[in-house]
C-alpha cells in the first residue's frame, strides 16, 4: 500500500505547482478588465452560434468499437503481469484471443463503418 503514498505525493505536488503558478501570476500581472476581454472568440473572430451543438452521430459507432477494445485491454493486463511465469503457451492463447477480436475489426472495416463519409 505504501507505494500509493508516492502517487499521493505526486498528485498533491502537481496540484500545488499549478496553484502556486496561478498565485504568482496573479501577484505580478496588471489588472485592467474591460468587457471586450470577456468576449468569446474563435481565432480572433466573433463566434457564430452556440458551443452546445449536436455532434455528428458517426462518432457513436467509433465509441462502441472503442468499448469493445477497451474490454480487450482489461484482459491484456493480468496476462502481461503473469507472462514472465507462463511462457509460450500463454502467448499462443493471447494471439488466438486477439485474432478472434480482429475478426470483429475486419467485419467493421469490410462494412465500411470505419470510413468517414
Amino acid at each position: 500500500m505504501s507505494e500509493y503514498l508516492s502517487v499521493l505525493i505526486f498528485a498533491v505536488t502537481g496540484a500545488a505547482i499549478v496553484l502556486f503558478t496561478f498565485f504568482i501570476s496573479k501577484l505580478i500581472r496588471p489588472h485592467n478588465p474591460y468587457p471586450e476581454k470577456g468576449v468569446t472568440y474563435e481565432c480572433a473572430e466573433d463566434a457564430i452560434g452556440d458551443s452546445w451543438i449536436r455532434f455528428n452521430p458517426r462518432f457513436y459507432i467509433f465509441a462502441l468499437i472503442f468499448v469493445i477494445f477497451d474490454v480487450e485491454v482489461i484482459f491484456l493486463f493480468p496476462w502481461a503481469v503473469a507472462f514472465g511465469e507462463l511462457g509460450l503457451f500463454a502467448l499462443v492463447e493471447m494471439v488466438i484471443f486477439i485474432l478472434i477480436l480482429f475478426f470483429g475489426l475486419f467485419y467493421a472495416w469490410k462494412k465500411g463503418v470505419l470510413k468517414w463519409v
Partner: protein
Amino acid sequence: MSDPGSVGIAFWILSAIVLISGLLVVSLKNIFHCALFLMLCLTGVAGIFILLHAEFLAAAQVLVYVGAVSVLMIFAVMLTSNLARKKIVQTNQNALVAFVSCVAFVVGALWLIKGTEVWKFATEALPANNTMTIGKLLMTEFMLPFEVVSVLLVAAMIGAIVLARGEEA
C-alpha cells in the same frame, strides 16, 4: 500509508467523493454535468478498490467504466440534439415520499444489521500480487472461458454495428 489510520482517512475521503458526486449526478439540472460527475463517482470507487488491494479491479473500473462507458454516455448526450443545453429537473412531486421511504429503509436495514451477530467479515487481506494470480488462472484453469470471451466481444461488436447502421440504411 499501510497503517490502519491513514487507510481509514483515505477511505473517508474517497467515500465523501463518491457520495457527493453521486448525489450531484441525480440532482444537477444539466445532464452533461451529471455525466461528468458520474465519471468522478466511478473514479472514487476505483480508489476504494485500490484501498482493498484489488488493483486489477481498480484498473478495470478506470478503463471500462470511467474510460469507455462514461465516454459512451457523454457521446449519447452530445449526439442527441439540444439535450446537453437543456435544463432538466430530475425530481418530481414524489421526491419527498421517496426520500422518507429511503431513509426508513436504510434505518431499518442498519438496525437489522446491528442486531445480527452472525455476520462474518473478510478480515484477511488479498495476496499482494493478486493480478498475477488472476493472469495465471486465466491462462491455465480458465483458458476456455477466456477464449470464449473474445467470441462474445466479437458478437457484441457485430451486434452494435448492425444496430447502429440500421438507422442509416
